[in-house]
């Protein structure tokens, strides 16, 4: 079998086929990392481009992400100790306090995991204390926050200011996103990057980790 086939089924959002093919690829002796890179991520890269070009929209992206998750279920246990993937970085991610929206956050979380990040997902309505505790425990390179509402986007500013004051962002970068959020807002509140959508958010996280490594 060809790993390209996994990518092709992922691009059309066929979760069942992706799961079967991932299992078959492992049985055929392919490494989990090769299946991830040449199958799932190769497919997701195409999805990202199609989404950016408005060739597909959120329903398609969500079904592709579901297909990716189906494949990841078989790869995750094998990738967990792999040097190739564990080196990407750690990310603590959550929708901030008061906000229950999670489509974007879940997509970013999934794509980061697929990119080899170790992701600690705090879910929705994550309090400042939850972020602080998680950062202290996991020492991530990326702290990602999402807010869908104008009432909750200001919580990101409070979080960033407090986390900086407490010294918890040393060695870490902050990535934010959400419907009312703009690049200008990200700059204004002291975030290091802004992702317009899940694909861009994931790409920015990779860049931020790279910039930390370069320093």
């Amino acid at each position, binding site marked *: 079998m060809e790993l390209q086939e996994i990518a092709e089924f992922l691009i059309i*959002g066929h979760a069942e086929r992706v799961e079967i093919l991932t299992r078959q690829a492992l049985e055929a002796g392919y490494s989990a990392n090769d299946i991830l890179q040449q199958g799932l991520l190769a497919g997701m890269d195409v999805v990202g481009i199609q989404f950016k070009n*408005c060739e*597909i*929209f*959120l*329903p*398609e992206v*969500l*079904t592709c992400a*579901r297909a990716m998750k189906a494949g990841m279920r078989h790869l995750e246990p094998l990738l967990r100790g792999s040097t190739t993937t564990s080196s990407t970085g750690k990310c603590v991610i959550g929708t901030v306090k*008061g906000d*229950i*929206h*999670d*489509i974007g956050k*879940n997509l970013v979380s999934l794509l980061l995991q697929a990119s080899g990040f170790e992701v600690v997902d705090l879910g929705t309505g994550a309090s400042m204390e939850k972020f602080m505790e998680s950062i202290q425990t996991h020492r991530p390179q990326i702290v990602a926050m999402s807010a869908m*509402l*104008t*009432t*909750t986007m*200001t919580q990101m500013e409070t979080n960033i200011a407090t986390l900086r004051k407490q010294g918890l962002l040393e060695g870490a970068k902050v990535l934010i996103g959400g*419907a*009312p959020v*703009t*690049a*200008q807002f990200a700059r204004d509140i002291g975030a290091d990057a802004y992702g317009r959508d899940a694909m861009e958010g994931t790409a920015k996280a990779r860049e931020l980790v790279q910039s930390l490594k370069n320093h």
Partner: protein
Amino acid sequence: MNSRERVARAMRHEAVDRVPVMCQLALGHYFLNCQSAPLDIWHSTESFGEALVALQRRYRFDGILINLPGRDPQWRSYIQHIETGADGQTIHWKNGWITECPRDDNPHVLRPDKSRFFVAFEEIDPDSLFYIEPHDLSGTSYPYCWGFSDDPAPGTSFFPPWQCDTIRYVLRATDHVVSVHSEIFSPFTQLLELLDYANGLMALLDDPLKFKACLKALTRGTIEWGRLQAACGVDAILISSAFAGGGFISPQQYSEFVLPFEKAVIDGIHEKSDVPIYTHTCGRIADRLELMGATGTQGIDTLDPPPLGNVDLADAKKRIGDCLFIKGNLDPVNIMLKGTPEGVICEAQRCLEIGAPGGGYILSTACSVPPHAPPENILKLAEAAAGFDVEKSNRSGVETGGMTLS
């Protein structure tokens, strides 16, 4: 010309003495800027009615959008106890459910295990759907029941007898001189609220036929609710269709899953009433303005400008301004929430200069005015409209080849 006449004339592209002003306010804005507690504004018909009228008067708006239904007068009898914390109040209902009421945002209804209620698409029988009220006291439910009463459909109609109480309250309080608009949810919005947004969007691809059967069933209830509102005497009905923009679905998906059902809703209401109906879809809608018009809607609310959306007001005016009235385009976040009063005047001026010539324009924020928007910013909208010379703008519109008044 009173406010009611002014808005009515603007919706019909007729001459007005000044451009009308009317914004949808986020419910959190009422919570923060009215006397009653958020918990009461959300749960009580009278408290919400008072809040609607108080802020319409304070901001000198020409109209009011009633964006919550009437409430069960017995709502307090279902409460076990209320807890007050730093971030707001929590209601513990007798059936074990919980409503968290933040001081600045919509309450969230949670089950005893603190999860939100959603139903799996596979479990839904389209025949059991009629209307889903996302703002019901107990949130969405399936099979549908209202509030915390055990009665699944109080009274003889699906809609409970108190459903129109807020409309009646506001009509009485404003004495027919203010334009009173009510709200129905698009079948597409209702279904996504019931399924959870992500699951709903995937369901649309997983089983399009069943998805459409659900939308068709919800269309029946939406028509009935719209007819009830029209019969009360509202001046316009807004279709809330928040998930129909480019941030969610493609123009093709809009054509398939939104357009036919919203068109059926509009046609169905218009069979019994000639009440104006307009549509609120936020975010990126520049690629579907004509499709929105094809639903038979008479106006488009929102028209978010960049960076929140992608609508250029001049372009929209050129494309749909002859047929549909336009309400909006003023950035609610970057201008109204984060801007200054001077900035609001400046942006309002820009919207008026582009929107007003030829009529059919209502000055408004694109999406809702955010909860924390400073009242001094909002007050500048009426000031900008009052200082804008409509006749002069029409003359310059004619001189520059713009549209003329009908």
